[in-house]
Structures are given as C-alpha cells and as structure tokens.
C-alpha cells in the first residue's frame, strides 16, 4: 500500500516536474509545479509530516504559486521566444553526470535498502511537535524569519511603488 502510494505520487511528481521544464508557457509550468507540490504533500504525509504537508499546500501551492500565477496573468506573459545561446551542450551532460552521481551515492553509500519508510513509522510531525520545537529550540531562527518577512514585505512594497511614479 505504501509502495503503491509512493510510486503513484512519485511518478506524478516527476511527470509534473518534467512538464515544468518542457512547457513553453509559464502558466502551464506553474500549474505543473502546483502538481509537484501537491504530490510532495502526499509524500510528506507518508513520511509522517502532517503539519509540513498542510503547510506545503497552504503556503506553497496556496500562496506562493498563486502569486506566480497572478504575476503571469498580470504581465500577460506569452510563450517564451527562442533566442540567445542554448546551454544544452554544456548543461545536459553535466546534469546527467550530476544526477547519476547523486543517485549512485545515495543508493550505494548513504542509505542501504534496509532503511525503509512505513506510514505511521514516525508520528512526531504533528502541529504540537512542530510548535514545541519552533518556540523552544528554534525560537531565534523563528524570530529572525519574521523579521526577514517584514523586510520582504517592505521591499516588495517599495519595488511595487516605484512603478506607480
């Protein structure tokens, strides 16, 4: 059951991710990315990360990607034009080597087959656990992050104001 779930959503995620890369229109890419994020949310649930799964959907899919879609609509961006040099020649081989090495190392060295994931094998990812860790061990990063967000809001407002002038 776990394996089936994993396979379904892994395949969905990979297909959507490939779609992100190959689609020429940004809005198709954006929707594919939402698909990736949705499948990842399910995989998070499988890994016992309930809160992160919900946050993934709310924050990533529900807020960040909506913002992307919004901007794409606002700019009425069309399909991209093919001009400038292509980086397929140096990029693709490097990428394949990169992926191959990563996969090889992961399989061969870091995590042998014996380490497995079962649904329910880890239950420490509920909102209570996250909250406890967030407001004790990670209090300082949390506060710093809120300042970062404040700065980002101000930055976005400033950037957006400029164009009104």
């Amino acid at each position: 059951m776990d394996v089936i779930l994993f396979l379904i959503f892994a395949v969905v995620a990979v297909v959507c991710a490939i779609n992100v890369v190959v689609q020429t229109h940004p809005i198709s890419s954006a929707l594919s990315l939402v698909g990736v994020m949705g499948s990842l949310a399910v995989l998070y649930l499988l890994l016992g990360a309930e809160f992160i799964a919900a946050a993934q959907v709310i924050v990533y899919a529900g807020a960040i990607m909506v913002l992307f879609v919004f901007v794409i609509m606002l700019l009425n961006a069309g399909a991209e034009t093919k001009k400038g040099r292509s980086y397929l020649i140096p990029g693709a081989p490097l990428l394949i080597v990169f992926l191959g090495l990563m996969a090889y190392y992961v399989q061969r060295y870091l995590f042998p087959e014996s380490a497995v994931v079962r649904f329910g094998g880890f239950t420490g990812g509920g909102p209570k656990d996250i909250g406890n860790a967030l407001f004790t061990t990670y209090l300082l990063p949390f506060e710093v992050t809120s300042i970062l967000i404040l700065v980002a809001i101000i930055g976005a407002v400033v950037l957006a104001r400029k164009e009104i002038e």
Partner: protein
Amino acid sequence: MELLDSFIFITLIKAAVVLAVLLTTLAYLQWVERKVIAHVQVRPGPYRVGPHGLLQPVADIVKLLTKEDLLPPYVNKPLYLLAPFLAISMALLSISVIPFGPEIKVGPVTTWMQLTDLNIGVLFILAVSSMGVYGIALAGWASNNKYALIGGLRSSAQMISYELPMSLAIAAPLLISNTLSLRELVMSQAGGIFHWNILHGPFPQIISFIIFMIAAFAETNRVPFDLPEAENELVAGFHTEYSSMKFASFFMAEYANMITVSAMATLLFLGGWMAPWPVAWGANLVPTVIFAIAGVTALYHGANPARKRDKLTLPVFGIIFLIIAGVFLLPIVQSWLLPLFWFAAKTGAILFLFMWVRATLPRFRYDQLMGFTWKFLFPVAMLNLLVTSFLVAWTTK
C-alpha cells in the same frame, strides 16, 4: 459481517451518503435562495414547477445538461476545461473532514458521522480552500476574455487577501479548544451555549466570529463582495465564457463553498452538533416543537379559503411536518437525528444569513474591499488573536 466491518466499505458507504445528500442540498440551496430573496422582495419566487416550485432545481439541472456546451475557439483549451473541474472538486473536498454528528450505532456498526477525522482537519480545510483560487483564476485567464481576466484577477487577489483575517479568526477559537481536529473541536464545546467558542471564556470569540463571517462572504465571492462577477462592470466575471454543465460547476462550487464555510463557522464557533442547553431542560424536544409549529401553521394557512393555489399543497406539507415532528420523538433515531438537526439548524441559519445579506446589501467598490481587509479586518483579527492568546496563557497554568 467482515465486509461491514472493513474500513474501506464503511467509508465508501458514508461517502456515497454524504455525496448524495450534499448534491441534493446544493441543488435545493439554489431554490431556497431564490425563495428567500423573493420573499424579502415580497414576491412568490419559483412557483410553477412542482408544488411551490419544489421541482425547479430538477428543471434547472435538465436545462443545463441539455444546453449546448460551447467551446470558444480562442480559449486555452486544457486550462479552460480544467478550471471548472478544479473549482468544484476543491469545493467538495473539504466536506470530507467535516463532522456532522457524534459516534453512532447503525445496526452492528459503530461509526462517526464524519467521513474522516484528520488531526490537522482545520489546516486541511484551509489548504483546500486556498487551492480553490486556482479554479477561478484559471477560468479567468484561460477564457482569453478581458472581463473574465479582470474577474479572475480580482477574485484571486480578494481571496488571498481575505484568507489572512480568516486564518487569524480561525486561530483564536483553536487556541481555546487547543486542537486542530474538527471532531475534538466540537467535543471541547460540549455542555451548552456558554461552552461554545463564541461565548466561551476566557475571551468570547464574538469578534472572531464576525471577522470569520465577513471573510467567509469574501472567500465565497458573495454579496457584498461579489466583485469578480459584478455584472454591470464585468458581464459575468470569470465565468463569462462558460456555459452548460461547466457553468453549473462554478455555480455548484460557489454553493458548496458556502456550505463549507457555514459548517466551519458552526464547528468553530457554534458548538457543531451540540445542543444549546442540556437535555434536562428539554433540548430534545426543540425539533419536535419547531416542526409541530411549522406543520400547524401550514395546516392553518392551507385551511384559509383565500389561498386557492395552496389548498392541496399546504395541508400536505403540514402533515409531513407533523410526521417529522413525531419522528424526532422516536428514541431509536434520536441518537443520530438530534445532533444532525442541531448541526443542520446552525449551518442553515448561517446560510440564511448569506441569502439575507445578498437580498439587502449593495456591492463594495474594489479599493474599498481591499482597504477594508488590509486596513481594518486584518489588524482587528490580529489584535483579537493577541488578546485571546494572552488570556488563554493567563488562565491555563
């Protein structure tokens, strides 16, 4: 027996029941709304199809299904088709975690009147409702029509903006109940009206409830926040280019969302299926009394010779109501019918509020709408959350 006990089988049954009831409700909600608005405006409303227009929804569905399904040539086809599907599925998805009543025994099976209980149920609903934006935004964009696009943009901006005060308003009662599971949320409000979160100490969540309701109106694109479909500016907004069943999907999505937020308000603030006062004070008799009064009233009006058109229907209705009043007295069904009655009554009251507001209030201007949430609603919700958390921290040692 083994089949009945299996988790999947029971869930399937429950899903089927809930879906059937929900879809019927959706169809009839439309009829109810037309009736309510008509009566507010002192006219009879749908009256021709069936007694008191009761078959009107059926006629509507038939009409929509048989209409030509127009596919404009200039649209972005995949997204154009995806949008209504997204809208309706996201709207229906949230129902799955809403509890309608307590644990009941139906024959040999003991089960909750809820499809499934997540311990992050509230977050789930927030997540799903935030995904609902896509349906509208994509519909607006894929239509390749300026009215639709503006409607879609307005809608997404509005929904993102109102999600913030809404989330903050939801967070406050959660602090009091100290859980994210909708089932436990209701359980924590047992014991009468003063244990409901709207009146519960240490800080009654009345402000929170009002903010939630205002945000809910905006989230569902209802009057007075229905700018995405303001017909005098934008024709029909994001669904200008949609017809037939796809148009109906958006319509159903809107009503399904209304039901969801009303149910959420009931669960979060109004104690879900809990009765407002103890059984000892006659809580179990309330539905009987209400239906009895309704039945008697119907009979009385039916006997009035001036109402010629209703001389058959009203007495029939009266008798049906009286029978229902009697059913509520049966001890076998009371255990599940009473919670269901309270849940439906509270949700229905809020739905009535939606319709009432639609019949009476004018529409906001767009900048007022945005200014209202960012400059007023959001700070107030923030303040309310702060006060609540301080008081909760104060009172819990």
